[in-house]
C-alpha cells in the first residue's frame, strides 16, 4: 500500500493542503493597509470601465459603461426574478457539492481501508477524472432535459474527482507514530478513523472543498447557460437573446459577486475547521 501511495504522490502531487504557504499572513500585517488598497483598486477598475465606452474605445453596444451596468443590476435586484435565479443557482451549486462531498468522502475512506481495491480502481479513476464535465452536457440533456438534475450531474461529476483525490491522499497521509499511539491505547478501527484518520484528512479535504466550491459554481452556471436549466446562467442566455446587453453584464457581475462570497465562506469554514493545523495556526506561542 505504501508503495502505491508514494508512487501516486510522486506522479502528481495534489495542491498543498489548506493552501500551506499560499497566504503570506505575516506580510498582510506589516504591509500597507490591504483592504484600503483593494478598495482603491476596485474604484480604479470601475473608473476605467466607465471611461472606455465613453471615450469611444469600445462601442457602448458591446460594453455599456459601469454606471449603466450597475444601475441595471440594482434595478434587477429589486425584482424577485434575480433572487429566484440566485436561489436556483445556489441550490444546484450546494446540492451538487454536497452530493459530491458525501460520495467522495465515503468512497475515499473505503479506499483508504482497502488498498487492494484502490490499486484495482486506480487506472479507471485516472481515465474518468480528466473527462471535462461539460463533455457530459449532451448526456445530461438526454437523461434529464432542462431539469435541475442536469445541473447536478455536471456539478457532481466535476466536484467528485476534486474531492475524492484529496481524500485519497489524506487518508494515506496518517502519521505512523500517531497510528501506533492510537493502537497502543486500544483505539479500535472506528475510533482510529474518527480521531486519527479523519483529522489527518481534513486539511486535504478542505483543499478539495475549496477547489470544488469554485468549480461547482462554474458548472452550475454553464449548465444553466447551455442546457437552460433554471438559474442565473439561464437569465444570462435570455438577456443575451433579447439584446439586453447591460442586463447580460449585470448578471455576469452578479455571478462574480456570488463567486467571491462563496470563496470567502469556504475560507472562513477552513479557518474554523483547521484552527489547529499549521496552515492556519501560524506561530506557536511557546
Amino acid at each position, binding site marked *: 500500500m505504501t508503495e502505491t501511495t508514494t508512487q501516486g504522490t510522486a506522479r502528481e502531487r495534489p495542491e498543498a493542503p489548506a493552501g500551506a504557504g499560499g497566504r503570506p499572513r505575516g506580510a498582510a500585517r506589516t504591509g500597507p493597509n490591504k483592504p484600503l488598497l483593494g478598495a482603491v483598486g476596485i474604484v480604479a477598475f470601475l473608473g476605467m470601465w466607465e471611461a472606455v465606452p465613453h471615450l469611444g474605445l469600445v462601442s457602448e453596444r458591446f460594453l455599456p459603461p459601469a454606471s449603466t451596468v450597475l444601475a441595471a443590476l440594482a434595478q434587477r435586484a429589486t425584482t424577485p426574478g434575480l433572487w429566484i435565479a440566485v436561489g436556483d443557482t445556489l441550490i444546484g451549486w450546494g446540492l451538487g457539492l454536497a452530493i459530491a462531498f458525501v460520495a467522495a468522502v465515503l468512497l475515499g475512506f473505503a479506499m483508504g481501508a482497502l488498498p487492494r481495491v484502490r490499486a484495482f480502481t486506480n487506472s479507471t479513476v485516472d481515465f474518468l477524472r480528466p473527462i471535462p464535465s461539460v463533455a457530459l452536457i449532451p448526456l445530461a440533456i438526454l437523461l434529464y432535459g432542462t431539469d435541475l438534475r442536469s445541473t447536478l450531474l455536471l456539478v457532481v461529476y466535476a466536484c467528485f474527482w476534486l474531492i475524492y483525490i484529496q481524500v485519497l491522499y489524506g487518508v494515506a497521509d496518517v502519521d505512523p507514530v500517531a497510528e*501506533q499511539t492510537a*493502537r497502543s491505547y*486500544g483505539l479500535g478501527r472506528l475510533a482510529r478513523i474518527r480521531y486519527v484518520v479523519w483529522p489527518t484528512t481534513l486539511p486535504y479535504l478542505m483543499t478539495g472543498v475549496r477547489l470544488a466550491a469554485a468549480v461547482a459554481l462554474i458548472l452550475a452556471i454553464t449548465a444553466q447557460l447551455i442546457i437552460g436549466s433554471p438559474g442565473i446562467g439561464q437569465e444570462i442566455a435570455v438577456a443575451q437573446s433579447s439584446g439586453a446587453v447591460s442586463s447580460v453584464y449585470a448578471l455576469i457581475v452578479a455571478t462574480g459577486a456570488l463567486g467571491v462570497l462563496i470563496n470567502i465562506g469556504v475560507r472562513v469554514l477552513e479557518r474554523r475547521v483547521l484552527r489547529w493545523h499549521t496552515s492556519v495556526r501560524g506561530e506557536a506561542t511557546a
Partner: protein
Amino acid sequence: MSANSGTSAGADAANPGATTNHQGERPTMLKVTGLQKIYNGGANAVEAVRDLTFDLGEGKLVCLVGPSGCGKTTLLKCIAGLMPPTSGTVELAGQSVTAPPPGMAVVFQEYGRSLFAWMSVRANVELPLKEKKIPRGRRRELVDESLEAVGLTSFAHAYPWQLSGGMQQRVAIARAIAYEPQVLLMDEPFAAVDAQTRADLEDLIRQIWQRMGVTVLFVTHDIDEAVYLGERVLVLSSSPTVVQDDITVDLPTERDQLTTRQDERFTELRARVYAEIQQAKKSAGAAPTAAPSVAH
C-alpha cells in the same frame, strides 16, 4: 486498579541489596522469551532482533541500552503488541501479548507526532480513557491527577503545539499514567529534548514510578540516563540483537542529578555499561551466534 495497591511496593522496590534476584521477590510482570524479529525482504531479509530473553518483576524500573541501530525500537514495538515477532513470546502478567494489551502504555520519542495536534492537552489525555469506557467522573479525576503529576494543570486547554518540547513530552507522560498501565514502555522519550529539560523529565519519571508503583521499561541510547534512572540496566548487543549483559544498579533509591552523578558507584556502573556497549559495537561484524550471554 492494581497500580494503586502497588504504591507502597514501588517505594521499597528500589531497595538496593534486593535487586540481585528479581525473580524471587515479586511476580514477573513482563516476560520476553526467545524474541526474534526478521524483517521480510525476500532475499535480503534483515534479522533485527535475534534472541531476546528477559523479564521484569512487578514495580521495577529497568533500562534497556544498546548501540544505535541495535533494534531497540523493534523490540519495543514487539513488546507493545504493535508488531508481531517472527518467533518468541511476550507475556504481560502471564497473558500472551498479540495485540496492544490494555495494561500497557507507550511513550514515544516523537512526542510531536504522538500527540494529536487537533485535540487540546486535556482531550489528548482523556481519549484513551474514553475508549477504555471509563465513566466520565472517574475520567476527569484521572486526567486532573495525571496533569497535576506532570505539572501541566494550567495548560489543560492549550493545544500540544502551543507548548515547548519538554512540556509536550510531559503531556504524553500524563496520557500514559492516566491510562493506569501495569507496564509503562518508554522509547527514547527524552532523546529530542534539551539537556536541562531532560534532567527534569528523568526526575519526573523516577518520581512517578515511585508513587505509582508501575513497572517501567525505559529504552534509551544514553548510558548516563540508563544508569541514573534504572534499578537494572539491560545492555543489548548490536543487531542482530541479544541481551549482552544484565547489570544491577545498586545506587540509593533517592537519586539526585548532582550528587548521584558524582557518586563513585555511578561512575563505575557507567564505565561498565560503556565498556559493554563498545564491545557490542566491536563484535558487530562477528555477530554472536549463541543464545544471550546472560542467563536468567
